[in-house]
């Protein structure tokens, strides 16, 4: 796109400095909301924009806010900045490089939700980033955009950062709430949903970093303008995290509905050595694999199209896998991740990810039989639809799809050992 709406630091140097942000329209959306719009009007504008949650689920943001029960206070806004999905690195860039737009987005969401306290839950590894955010929050307060009775309104707001400590599961919103309450990060049984029973048992809105960063332009320029970007059902810009076998990995801000081919070839510069893509993971390590056919390369990257192809767009973390990748090794890598990150609360995920990993190690060792490959598919099937939270489902996506699409990559280990086998086995010795 000619203009970056989210990755604005790429157009405006030093936009992470308050005076630069202010000189480029910073906090005008918040001023407009506080002085000329009711919280309900802000919510309606966001609903009309068609903005969908950018954390992965793609749920309409305004609708999510509207689930808050009337007249129950205090309410909280919690920001999911636990970015931990292998292949995802967009929120980090937004918070590091364009922090005030993100923070203004928090203030807009908090105003719409009438939440006077917001917590940014950052993954623990974002240690430096959280300290930078603390400084930016302090500057925002000094400039009069935080604190009591903002801009003469009746609305007050404080924003705090909170560091996690290395747990992917805390990206799941109810596990995140548990963690923020000082407990182990295990998902809650729903209902009740966070909108009614969230942080400290109070009504709570939880939004992703990128979702919130979309709000200042929506309020400043209006929903009708926003809808001119993207597709009718997937409106707006999206930051695509491109990684794996590409010449120019990185974050690319594009309208939803841009094709994989544009991202991978026009922007990403294609694959190193002119190699061919074998498969694409559209949503990071939890993706159901797509075979990289011409039709898939021409597929628009929007929520509906990718779902129709049997995968999901999720957080739009596109990992490109070239023809050299052994998909049974890939399934081993993702299973190792999910087994490590399973919180242990529900049995299908805790035991299932353990057995998937064991079987995949066995397959990679070259000592497995066809029976073991069959059993792997069965274990994955027994996890499906039985877990408390999406982590279990995420774990089986790459396993089931690599079995279905690339069975030959499993078969080849049954008669011959893998070159990676020794390494993999010793890692877990």
């Amino acid at each position, binding site marked *: 796109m000619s203009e970056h709406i989210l990755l604005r630091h790429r157009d405006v140097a030093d936009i992470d400095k308050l005076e630069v942000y202010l000189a480029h329209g910073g906090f005008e959306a918040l001023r407009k909301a506080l002085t000329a719009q009711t919280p309900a009007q802000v919510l309606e504008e966001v609903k009309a924009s068609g903005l969908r949650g950018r954390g992965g689920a793609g749920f309409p943001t305004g609708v999510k806010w509207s689930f808050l029960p009337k007249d129950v206070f205090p309410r909280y806004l919690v920001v999911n900045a636990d970015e931990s999905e292998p292949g995802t690195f967009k929120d980090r860039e937004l918070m590091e490089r364009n922090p005030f737009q993100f923070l203004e987005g928090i203030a807009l969401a908090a105003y719409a939700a009438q939440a006077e306290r917001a917590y940014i839950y950052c993954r623990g590894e974002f240690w*430096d980033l959280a300290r930078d955010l603390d400084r930016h929050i302090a500057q925002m307060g000094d400039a009069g955009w935080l604190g009591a009775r903002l801009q003469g309104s009746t609305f007050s707001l404080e924003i705090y950062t*909170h560091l996690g400590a*290395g747990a992917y599961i805390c990206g799941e919103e109810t596990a995140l709430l548990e963690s923020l309450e000082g*407990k182990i990060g295990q998902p809650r049984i729903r209902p009740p949903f966070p909108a009614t029973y969230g942080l400290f048992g109070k009504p709570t809105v939880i939004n992703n970093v990128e979702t919130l960063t979309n709000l200042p332009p929506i309020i400043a320029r209006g929903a009708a303008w926003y809808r001119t970007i993207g597709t009718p059902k997937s409106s707006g810009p999206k930051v695509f995290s491109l990684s794996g076998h590409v010449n120019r990995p990185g974050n690319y801000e594009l309208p939803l509905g841009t094709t994989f081919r544009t991202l991978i070839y026009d922007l990403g510069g294609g694959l190193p050595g002119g190699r061919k893509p074998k498969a694409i993971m559209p949503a990071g*390590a939890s993706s159901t694999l797509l075979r990289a056919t011409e039709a898939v390369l021409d597929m628009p990257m929007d929520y509906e199209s990718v779902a129709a192809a049997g995968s999901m767009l999720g957080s739009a*973390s596109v*990992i490109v896998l070239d023809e050299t990748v052994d998909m049974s090794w890939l399934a081993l890598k993702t299973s190792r991740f999910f087994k490590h990150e399973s*919180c242990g609360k529900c049995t299908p995920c805790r035991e299932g990810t353990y057995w998937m990993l064991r079987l995949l190690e066995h397959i990679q060792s070259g000592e497995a039989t066809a029976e073991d490959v069959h059993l792997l598919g069965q274990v994955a099937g027994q996890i499906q639809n039985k877990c408390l939270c999406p982590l279990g489902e995420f774990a089986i996506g790459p396993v089931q799809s690599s079995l279905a699409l690339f069975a030959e990559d499993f078969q080849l280990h049954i008669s011959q050992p893998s070159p990676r086998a020794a390494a993999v086995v010793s890692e877990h010795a």
Partner: protein
Amino acid sequence: MLADKHADEIRSLLERYPPERKRSAVMPLLHLAQREYGWITRAALQEVAELTETTSTEVGTVAGFYTLYRSQPAGTHTIQVCTDLPCALKGGEELAKKLCANLGVRLGEVTPDGLFMVEEVMCLAGCDRAPVLQVQDARGIQYHENQNEDSAMRLIGDLRRASKEPKA
């Protein structure tokens, strides 16, 4: 004692949460304890429990669940190399092995001088600049991206030299 040495930081951490929800400060205080002691000692669990008006068992459960908290002493600098899928596609696994070989240790083993430990770590959200590693020490956590054996060994050399300089 954390309470004496870091009184201001502790006060500001506790102020972030409602007064009746002090337990929310368990994780930030565990980070503080680890920075101070290098790992989560039994005494630290008790200190954090007192500050947050909960029990050391509850605090211990939290410390055990989250991977950034250490239950035993580590090297002065823990080098954590990402070997998850996007980094593995760019040589993350080999990088971890080479660092171990160069330092003469296995994964998770501390060098004889007590300075370094190499570990594998889960995705660090830096996949466009793979392979990525992070260094965890008393200063906190620092990212180092686009790494290879040479750059990582230079970093290790720099950290070793810095450790020999007299503390300011």
